């Protein structure tokens, strides 16, 4: 590893005035990604176990979800995303009434 760069050059912009807020948001997004990865893994693990018993690790590595299963996974992701950003939806209480 380390042959190809993982990060773009240049400074990352700060979108928030509160120190640490931008980094915190990145952490949350990475956490969300991790959770999504785990959910997908578990989903597949269960499917594999259901089909053929306990030789899970190798089977998971080569597993390709069916169209139906992919749709179910997409739904899981969309539900998770809607949860994470629920504070931005207008039907919920606003986070702040920040004047311009």
């Amino acid at each position: 590893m380390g042959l190809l760069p993982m990060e773009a050059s240049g400074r990352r912009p700060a979108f928030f005035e509160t120190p640490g807020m931008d980094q915190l948001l990145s952490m949350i997004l990475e956490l969300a990604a991790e959770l999504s990865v785990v959910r997908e893994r578990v989903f597949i693990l269960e499917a594999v176990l259901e089909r053929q018993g306990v030789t899970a690790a190798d089977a998971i590595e080569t597993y390709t979800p069916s169209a139906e299963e992919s749709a179910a996974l997409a739904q899981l992701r969309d539900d998770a995303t809607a949860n994470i950003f629920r504070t931005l939806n207008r039907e919920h209480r606003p986070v702040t009434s920040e004047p311009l």
Partner: protein
Amino acid sequence: MPIDLQHDMKVPHRQSARARQDFVSSLRAYILNDMAAGMKSRYREAVEPRLSAQLGRPPATQDEVHAAMKGDLYFKFYSAVRYNAQEMVWRSVVPGIEASLPAMQAKAEALDGRAGGSLTLNPALELPANVTSVDVHLMPGVYAAPDTPAAGAVYDNGLAVFAAGFMGRDLNDIGMSMANYVRKRFPDFRPGNILDCGCTVGHNTLAWARTYPDATVHGIDVSSSVLRYAHARAGSLNIAAHFHQMDATHLAFPDASFDVVFSSMFLHELSVKDIKHFFAEAYRVLRPGGLLINMELPPNQSLEPYDQFYLDWDCYYNAEPFYRAFRDQDYAGLTKAGGFPADGFLQFTVPQYTYMDDDSFTEAVQRPPSIDGETGRLSATLQWFGFGAWKR
């Protein structure tokens, strides 16, 4: 969902990486549809009325809108999430590519020359500053590793995640939509030689070969890495195309050698000065009766201030330094500056060719262009924008 690359240059990604790509792609679709709609409502309902009251008139420029939106919490979240998602696109594909570098190199060598295509590199070419001084689209080390197809692989795999399903199964919907626009709108025009400028991995170059199977298709880019990948990719798809390492502002082709000069998502990577050089070169290498055609974002002058601001987000936050300066131009004026006659100018909007049947597309291309806040932006209601000019 990210699309699965449909060619032999694709690399295996571990299941956990594929799941991460799935997440990032779904997140991008959420940002571009749901959050974009939420932000626009927020603007209409809260920000714009306050701004209009402050100014004593409706906002007239995107700078006024941008300045007001910067203070809005929805905008901060939209921007921060979108920025992070952009970083995460690349992070989700790099490890799989890194693990496959030797295999990819071997595959590229094995595919060399298949399908009758060619690759002509020019190691003496000086890379322009617009690709060496900035990691465009936040793509890490965008033109690094010139002797391998690595940058091409990062671009192609990244695009598959980034596109979030909006660019077609073969990531070629832009090329297919543009080429088929020409085929349907101008049925008597039968190009024999076609040039794609700033072609990167050739995904849209090959669309022209598919649409005009009798034509000879060329693609140029300044990066040898993306071209090595493009050449192998075309070979694996069994489509003949000729790739050259060349700068679009200094084409090495003789005068009057092409019927079509095409570009997609390319002009906004160039300074206005370079766009004018490119158009002058396009005019030179086109035959009389030939067509310059560019797929791009619509011009700012055709959009409301909010929509201008929305599309120019990339200029401020996605390492696209020339994006806005290009979109502030009068596109007809740019083609005229390149030598094209004023009455040769054309502009149009088209729906996505690979997402619909041929008859519906045929009907759609006869309609006059309709440019609004949805034009050219990735969303569920996408219409591509194109413009160009005929050489008389």
